[in-house]
């Protein structure tokens, strides 16, 4: 997590000194996190890459226009979210039938299904978790990814998502519970009828 003071200093370098390297530092710090944030909202890694680049360029435009930035991290997540929304709007416009909720589709369902059959138990768990994670409510998915994948603490997540820490704690609790319940359901289904389960997952 970028310290608040360093963040402010980088902003100062961009605004007053017009120093592009300051933006490079911001990219180095946040690129992985923003990529992951977008990755879990789109269909493929390639889309996530394109949209991450687009998000950073938009963030640069925003910073260049000298608009007020109370929290850089929150700005980057907000720009990333709007880039994904624009992407799905564009898709819907192109195909005429893709809803925004389709952001939760699996990257390659066939591949995941194959892994279910082939891989060892850990890998099987991972695939199921990822599958279920992608199918979760957006706000649940966001807090789980930020907490357990990016390692952010509650305060940092709250600042990034524009929520209160208490709100984030509640969301995290509910999200983890919902994910665990969904996985439990899978396990029951798997025990009852392994063939059906694989077919459904496929």
């Amino acid at each position, binding site marked *: 997590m970028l310290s608040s003071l360093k963040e*402010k200093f980088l902003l100062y370098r961009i605004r007053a000194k017009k120093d592009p390297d300051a*933006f490079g530092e911001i990219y180095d710090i946040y*690129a992985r996190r923003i990529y*992951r944030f977008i990755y879990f909202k789109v269909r493929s890694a390639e889309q996530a890459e394109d949209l991450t680049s687009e998000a950073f360029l938009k963030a640069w435009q925003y910073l260049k226009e000298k608009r007020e930035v109370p929290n850089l991290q929150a700005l980057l997540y907000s720009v990333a979210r709007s880039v994904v929304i624009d992407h799905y709007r564009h898709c819907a416009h192109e195909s005429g039938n893709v809803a925004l909720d389709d952001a939760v589709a699996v990257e390659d369902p066939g591949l995941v299904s194959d892994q279910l059959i082939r891989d060892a138990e850990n890998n099987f768990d991972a695939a199921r978790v990822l599958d279920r994670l992608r199918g979760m409510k957006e706000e649940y998915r966001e807090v789980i990814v930020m907490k357990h*994948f990016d390692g952010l603490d509650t305060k940092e997540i709250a600042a990034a998502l524009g929520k209160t820490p208490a709100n984030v704690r509640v969301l995290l609790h509910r999200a983890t519970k919902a994910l*665990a319940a969904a996985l439990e359901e899978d396990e029951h289904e798997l025990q009852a009828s392994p063939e059906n389960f694989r077919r459904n997952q496929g």
Partner: protein
Amino acid sequence: MNSKRLLKTFGAIKDERRGGTPHEAWLTRSRDIIMMQVRNTTDSRQAASPLTSAYHLFDIFFPLAAFQSFARAAAMFLLVVGAVVGGGLASAGVYKDALPGDRLYGTKLAVEKTQITLAPNEDYRTRLHADFADRRMEEAAALAEGAVARYRYLPDVLVAFDGEVRALDAGIDSLRTSDRAGAVELAKNVERRLAGYRVTMRKASSILPGSYRRSIDESRSLVDSVSIKAMAVIIEHHRAGDVEAPQTVVASNFEEHLNQAEAKINKASDREQVATQAAKAKTAIAEAKELVTEGKYEAALSKMAEVVELTKEVEMDEDASSVIPGSTRDPEAAPAPAGEGTAESP
């Protein structure tokens, strides 16, 4: 899957590509492309002037919200220091007792405005409005009992008083939705204060010439309507079983209002012009009392609103019929509002 296994799975996949970790090669490539575009859109020769740099430095490290918080704290500090150290104005109560026309009256209003602005929450702000309503009423009473030359300040004081009463009214509305317990407490508090204001205004009204009495009548109408609203809140809470609004409080509030009205009506003269309305008012009072006894508070409140109107009409009729042409009570012969000598009121 239990949470321990879930967390273990998170830990295992977070560094994998499918867990959302990007390719290092893509990161580098993307960085190069982005930085190229960033450099292409930046003219570093157009670096900001020292003044603009200072502005950015201030704006980024000390944004407006932080500045406002700081200014608020500083203003509060200065206010406290000013009040305590600055000649002991506050502690000596010099400006607190200032009346319209006094040199320090402007300071008094400025301090009140500052207090309202710096109020930390709605509840505190409403309490301030209640205190300031008291002050305006005290000022109005002092002006009515003071020199005739100062009567001219009365309309403005009453307008300010109305403003404070309206703020109390808004405070009740706001608390009704946000803090039900706070709403009944405020309603009771407001109701007590309004009863006091009614007595003061009646007294002032009996002293003042007709032109100023009209200003007082307007304030009394407002006080009556807010009072009925406060009563409605108390009844609402009583019906909901709130221990803060027991039957004794509801009944005593009604009793106080109706007894006051009854006393006024009983004092009314037997002149024909007044007697008809007084009889109607007496009937309404009796009906209201009966409804209170039966516990029909909502109907009693509606009847009480009728009593208030009728009492007001009786008082107006009484005033009109008791005017002696040419006297200072005659609105037509009232002294001109501004700069008219220093004679004391009767």
